[in-house]
């Protein structure tokens, strides 16, 4: 009976996520949508807390202390930050979500290394995927934060042919993961450690060549990564709400990334391999080739609604022509 109630709570939580995200995508209902998603999260956490601990010892003291510490830090950081520094903070939060997934996958793989768990190739593959995606989201977001905050200058961390190097790096990681996943005999603390470190370095290297102006797009992309890693972790625990929440963020994060690129008149590929694309576009605008951003009807209506002053220039297009 308890299990049934918990499963139903997960269903309600997942529904709150979907509905909340939907309300979030319209200005009038956005605030309410955010709260709704928050309630969904609360339901999911409480349901997980009361769920039977499946042969373990429960360890509620550990959980309670961790929850309180996390709440305290998150609350303080979110309340203190200045409006203009919010994107950076979101990036840090996102990185921590990735770090959470990395810790989970690392610990589970550690269990396998200790020979405490029998694991099939498919669950090994899921664990390695969680580790890889979560790791990139983790260090990538941290570097994105540093760049956006101006703590790291673009020029200092870009290698020649950086996007080429990244491709080879990623390929190497996938091959390494395939080797590890081939049989649980290949899993040891040493190989897991190496894979984790390489993944974290790749996360840095992935974000390094992306110019400062494009960083918000990258944060959105990394956000969808951390969603995907949460979904992959959900497959480890066979937990539906992690799966739904994670995939929902993964999918909507991806499409949001594309929309953000469109709003800047760029393609995602261009942003990812463009290197100094951001600065190049800016200087082009100054020297005469104008960047014009078209706005759709719905977008225009919302922008007008929230603007204080509007300038109408009749015949501007004709004058430019």
């Amino acid at each position, binding site marked *: 009976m308890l299990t049934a109630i918990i499963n139903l709570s997960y269903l309600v939580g997942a529904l709150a996520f979907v509905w909340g995200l939907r309300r979030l995508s319209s200005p009038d209902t956005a605030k309410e949508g955010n709260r709704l998603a928050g309630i969904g999260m609360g339901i999911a956490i409480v349901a997980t807390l009361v769920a039977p601990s499946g042969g373990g010892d429960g*360890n509620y003291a550990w959980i309670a202390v961790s929850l309180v510490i996390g709440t305290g830090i998150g609350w303080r950081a*979110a309340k203190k930050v200045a409006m203009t520094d919010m994107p950076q903070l979101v990036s840090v939060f996102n990185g921590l979500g990735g770090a959470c997934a990395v810790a989970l996958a690392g610990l589970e793989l550690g269990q396998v290394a200790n020979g405490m768990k029998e694991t099939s190739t498919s669950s090994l593959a899921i664990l390695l995927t969680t580790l890889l995606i979560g790791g990139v989201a983790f260090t990538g977001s941290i570097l994105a934060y540093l760049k956006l905050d101006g703590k790291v200058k673009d020029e200092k961390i870009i290698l020649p042919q950086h996007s080429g190097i990244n491709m080879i790096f990623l390929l190497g990681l996938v091959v390494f993961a395939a080797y590890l996943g081939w049989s649980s005999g290949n899993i040891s603390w040493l190989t897991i450690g190496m894979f984790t470190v390489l993944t974290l370095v790749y996360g840095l290297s992935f974000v390094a060549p992306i110019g400062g102006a494009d960083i918000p797009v990258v944060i959105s992309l990394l956000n969808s990564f951390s969603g995907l890693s949460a979904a992959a972790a959900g497959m480890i625990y066979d937990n539906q709400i992690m799966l739904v929440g994670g995939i929902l963020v993964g999918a909507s994060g991806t499409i949001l990334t594309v929309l953000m690129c469109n709003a800047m008149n760029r393609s995602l590929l261009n942003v990812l391999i463009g290197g100094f694309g951001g600065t190049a576009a800016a200087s082009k605008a100054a020297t005469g080739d104008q960047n014009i951003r078209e706005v759709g009807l719905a977008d225009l209506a919302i922008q007008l609604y929230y603007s204080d002053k509007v300038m109408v220039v009749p015949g501007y297009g004709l004058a430019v022509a």
Partner: protein
Amino acid sequence: MDIAQLVAFVDEHLLMFYLLLFTIILGFEIIAKVPTVLHTPLMSGANAISGIVIVGGILLVKQAAATDLFMLIGGSLAIVFGMINVIGGFVVTDRMLEMFKKKTK
């Protein structure tokens, strides 16, 4: 992993794959028509939802033995990270959306 094993895995978890597919489509559809001004709050809100990974951390610590300090510390760290993401994410989104309060003129 050979193909037969993969097919068997998908078949075994068929409902999950249905869920996966429909959730992807749902995620795309919800966001497809969102105004530019909402991009950042939406990213932030979605980021808070991705903190659902914390559920995994709680499960991990609950399933650990009370003597297994390594798992307990590692798992607790995961919960702390996840909780910062969740609480911070929702609160910061809420603050961002303060800007969209209806103007009373």
